[in-house]
């Protein structure tokens, strides 16, 4: 495994995690668990941690990792996605912040790669952000003015580490797909995308960017359709495909990977992810609720290892649950164990 891969994580006081530890991650990691055991939060913690070597990246990562979910604050009035508005909200809606953010608690997200500490503290003058990142000294009492100064403008582009992607179930917008597809073109991998699209739906022949819009050629129509006009599974596949090539040597975080994908296509999807992750040296973390998705993952991983198509011991499966003290807990199984569990029809979707 590559040196840049995250193999262990420790999370303290971040959202639902009070004191969580997990060790044994590999190149490709599938995570399952019941509702509200922190699967998505784990991806967010990984995302924030991976952006922890630059303060601009870090503040953006906190914004990106939390703004699409209503766990920290109320975002209904933030339509523009401006990071300054996000932090304005953070600094003004104190009561909500106190309730949801365990104010004054120190948040820690530590991996074998980076250390990130941060806290939101209420003082007489208002909320303060304190944080310490992997390569920086401790930043104390960061105010809104400081953040404005840091980002210079209200409409600053949300910049994070380009080799770290957090993919929500909603997927990428067209502009981002266009940008990422450039990497696929650079590597001449357009045919591979067309092949797997055709496998997903024999009526789809070709993917193309036309007038800055991602489109697919539909055989029966003899015309191109925007991918927003075809099924969610096709759009999801395109998202995953272009993202894998975009984050070479990086980290790809896929939330609810099975959404929109028919079970009969899951083997092809996992074969793509596991193969390209190795080829592009990408570490992948994906979450799921689906037993079929886990079984497919176990089956494909075993087959690829037997075919020696991928390195041995490069696959892990993490099951999350709660222990007797109601704390979030996890078990990480290797490819041999997850194959055994799935073939014996054991319960592996959390406890």
């Amino acid at each position, binding site marked *: 495994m590559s040196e840049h891969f995250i193999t262990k994580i420790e999370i303290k006081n971040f959202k639902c995690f009070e004191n969580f530890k997990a060790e044994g991650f590999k190149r490709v990691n599938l995570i399952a668990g019941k509702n509200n055991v922190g699967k998505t939060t784990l991806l967010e913690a990984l995302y924030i941690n991976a952006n922890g070597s630059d303060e601009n990246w870090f503040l953006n990562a906190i914004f990106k990792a939390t703004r699409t979910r209503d766990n920290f604050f109320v975002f209904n009035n933030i339509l523009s996605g401006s990071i300054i508005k996000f932090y304005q909200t953070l600094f003004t809606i104190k009561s909500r912040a106190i309730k949801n953010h365990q104010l004054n608690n120190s948040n820690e997200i530590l991996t074998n790669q980076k250390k990130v500490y941060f806290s939101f503290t209420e003082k007489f003058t208002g909320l303060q952000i304190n944080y310490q990142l992997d390569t920086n000294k401790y930043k104390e009492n960061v105010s809104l003015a400081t953040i404005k100064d840091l980002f210079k403008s209200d409409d600053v582009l949300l910049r994070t580490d380009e080799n770290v992607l957090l993919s929500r179930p909603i997927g990428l917008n067209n502009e981002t797909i266009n940008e990422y597809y450039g990497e696929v073109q650079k590597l001449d991998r357009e045919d591979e995308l067309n092949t797997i699209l055709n496998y997903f739906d024999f009526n789809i022949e070709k993917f193309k960017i036309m007038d800055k819009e991602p489109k697919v050629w539909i055989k029966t129509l003899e015309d191109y359709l925007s991918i927003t006009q075809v099924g969610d599974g096709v759009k999801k596949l395109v998202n995953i495909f272009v993202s894998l090539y975009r984050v070479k040597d990086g980290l790809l975080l896929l939330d609810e990977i099975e959404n929109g994908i028919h079970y009969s296509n899951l083997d092809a999807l996992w074969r793509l992810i596991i193969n390209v992750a190795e080829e592009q040296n990408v570490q992948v973390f994906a979450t799921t609720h689906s037993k079929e998705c886990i079984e497919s993952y176990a089956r494909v991983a075993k087959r690829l290892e037997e075919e020696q198509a991928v390195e041995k011991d490069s696959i892990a499966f993490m099951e999350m*649950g709660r222990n007797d003290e109601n704390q979030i807990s996890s078990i990480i199984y*290797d490819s*041999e164990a997850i194959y055994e569990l799935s073939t014996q029809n*054991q*319960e592996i979707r959390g*406890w």
Partner: protein
Amino acid sequence: MVKIIVEGDGDRNLIEELLKHLAKNEQIPKYNFQSLIIHMGGKKKLLNGNDTKYIKILTPEVRNDKIKKALFLFDCDFEEDDQKCNGMDNSKKCFEKLLEKLKWDIPVDYHIFDRNLDYFLIETIKDKECYEHFDNLIECLEVERIKPNKKPIAKLYKDLYPYPKFDFEDQRFEPLKTKLTNLFEKETDDNITSN
């Protein structure tokens, strides 16, 4: 959750059927019982605390409170085949060693089939008259002399009847039924109970 640890597929099928029977009689709650039964691939592996299924699956599941109670089911087998772990006394000794090795801090129970599962199945099939014929066949073919257990006959019966008609009301099922019913009761401080 509870976990039932058995030797092989045959045990798994029997226990699943028996659990369905108990659930039908409302003695235990309904569940996807297959997911609670794991087979280890033979008695040797079941009694080996270093087996990968213990190390990679079952012990981590116990440590993380996924498995809260366990029941082990295995054959007594014949002492002449293996003097170390076969026969009732040796089987119990080997099982105690397994528990020492595993160091699980959950309630654990076990049930050892007299001789083996095949005898148990043949002796408890619903069609009692068939059983007499089985005995005649065994005698006629000198099965006991050639291979001193009923595996070949049990295999023949299972080949002919993939879904055997077990007589779960047979008294010989009672000890096993009690252990299974106890397993699904709320956790108690009981640890190891005798067979």
